[in-house]
């Protein structure tokens, strides 16, 4: 499983698996053929605060983990800190997740 680095504001790097990153159509497109990000394995998201990006990564991993579970298995809720919700909403909109 290859890894991708997401770079947030202040150049804080957050690693994530390529599969989990691909949950976001935006990141998936960036990692697809004609773009530079595919070779570098690094995506710069310099408008996003590090703590928000960390939460985004948590969500992507959560989504990827429970994406293919069977009907019978329960999926836990994804928790969001209240004070982050507005900021996270804008980032989620940008990443289309």
């Amino acid at each position, binding site marked *: 499983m290859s890894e991708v680095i997401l770079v947030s504001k202040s150049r804080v790097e957050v690693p994530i698996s390529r599969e989990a990153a691909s949950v976001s*159509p935006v990141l998936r497109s960036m990692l697809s053929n*004609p773009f530079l990000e595919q070779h570098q394995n690094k995506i710069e998201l310099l408008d996003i605060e590090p703590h928000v990006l960390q939460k*985004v990564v948590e*969500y992507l991993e*959560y*989504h990827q983990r*429970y*994406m293919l*579970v069977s*009907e*019978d298995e*329960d*999926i836990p809720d*994804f928790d*969001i800190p*209240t*004070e*982050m*919700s*507005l*900021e*996270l*909403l*804008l980032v*989620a*909109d940008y*990443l289309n*997740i």
Partner: protein
Amino acid sequence: MYRGRNRPRGKASEDNQVRGPNSALTQFLKEQGINAESIRQKWLKSREKDKEESNGKVKSEDEDESVSIAKPATKSRRRAIEISSDDDDDDDIDYDDESEEAEGDSMTSGVDNDENKDQVESSASIRSAESRLKRFAVDAEDSDEAEYDEGMSSRTVSETPVIEISQEQLEQKLKKSRQQLQQRKRKKKRAAELLDRKTRRISTLQDTCIAQISANISRLQQNTNSSDESISAQIRDTLGGLSTQNMNKLARTLSKNRALNDHTLQLFLRTELQTLAFHDCSRLSYEGYKLLAIFAPHLSELSLQMCGQLNNEALLYIAEKLPKLAALDLDGPFLINEETWDRFFTRMRGRLKSFHVSNTHRFTNHSLESLFRNCGDTLVSLRLCRLDDVSDYSIIPRCLKVRNFERLALEHPSKEEYVTDDVVGAIVTAAGRKLKHLNLNGCTALTDTTIVNLKEALSKNEGAESILESLELEELDQISTDAMVHLFSQVPMPQLKVCSLKRCLLLEDMAVTELFLNKAGEKLVALTLNSLKEVKGECFEAMSCPNLERLDIGFMGCANDTLVKELGDRNPKLEILEVFGNNLVTGKAEIRSGLTVIGRQSDTL
């Protein structure tokens, strides 16, 4: 089995260690002296007593007795179930844990007591398993059946020898019952999710955030006095705060998720916002609009799209409570009647500079007249789109008073004959050279006369340049190449940034070539040539637009791989090239870096 739900829980709640209904059951059992240990002790005591009495009896009789002695314990458990059954399913689970505990205890004690080890183990586990099975049966069926089933089960306990049910079978049954319970819970959850219109199992992060935001807004509203002025600020602070610049971004995101409602509207109140655009107001009630008018007093530009619930009262509130309002864009305000439009324009007299309205059947000729009568002195921007009840567009040139009229958009009249060459000619003549934006999309009755009139209006002073910034003539299928050549060759348009000739089906290469040769080519940022099927492609040889960022050449027969490469090379800033419907543009096309080609058949997501 139906029992009242008003069982007093005062004691339970008084106890600090009690948490929720599950613990209330435990508390009740404790109060009644029912616990696994006491039941075990009682059973062991009676077991020893019996043993002493029937010391000489055969082993088989001994086994039968153990079953019958086990009965009181089962019964006491049953009593506990009956009392607790007015709680939810969770109680069942809790009871399940209790019985497991009992089972565990019995097992431990069984190890200590070597003599009775096997019997204790089997009878205790069978007993707890039986009671659980009965409980699941009670849950699964209707109350009548449950009672019947209950009776049957207790009879089974007393009459059927327990030894006939093997351990494996019991385990299987238990497992099955557990699965059934879980499945029921899952179904319940799915049903609840469906009612919330959630079809996907994993919510999107956006949905989760919006749910969180809405829940917090509701909670804060409940906790705070409604007259408290700091509530909106408090909401924003609690949710992490947002800059004024991001407010419109948030409005867009909420609209996109169909989540803009009276609750989320709170985010936009009591701010310094001067410009606000809501792209989907369909869930905003008239009360919401009134709140917006009262608590966002600095607004000068307001755009409310799909504002179906905006009523007469709310519109008048907007006019009254927003003293700085100068630009209003409304889409779908079909509740506003003629009289209210009249009153609104009267109130906006002297300050309404821009008025855009679309998709309503209640904006009439009279309303249009009222607009110009009251606000004609200040109005510099007008957009009328899909208004079913406006038939007399000649009111506009008749009433147009200002000398600096900047923007005119007449789009998709209900009948094409309502917007004629004469009307448009009169307007552009009245507006003159000050016109910056002209949009005549869907006015299909217009012919070359309009273009000639436009040329005359824009070039009144010989040699002077036009200040036109956008020209949109979509679906004008009667205008010819000659007319466009005449316009573009005679009137320099150095400011032109947006041009759309979409579906002007008669246009040929010369018309487009002339556009590129015009000074317009230097400033052009967005160009739409979609569906110009008569254009053969020669025009692109003259193309050199240093600032062009978006180009739409969809459904043009001449588009192919070579053209795509050429366009990329000729226009250094071109970012988006749309090629929908062009099957000659293939995956082999050479695309320079920085350019995105959209709409190729070979591109699949």
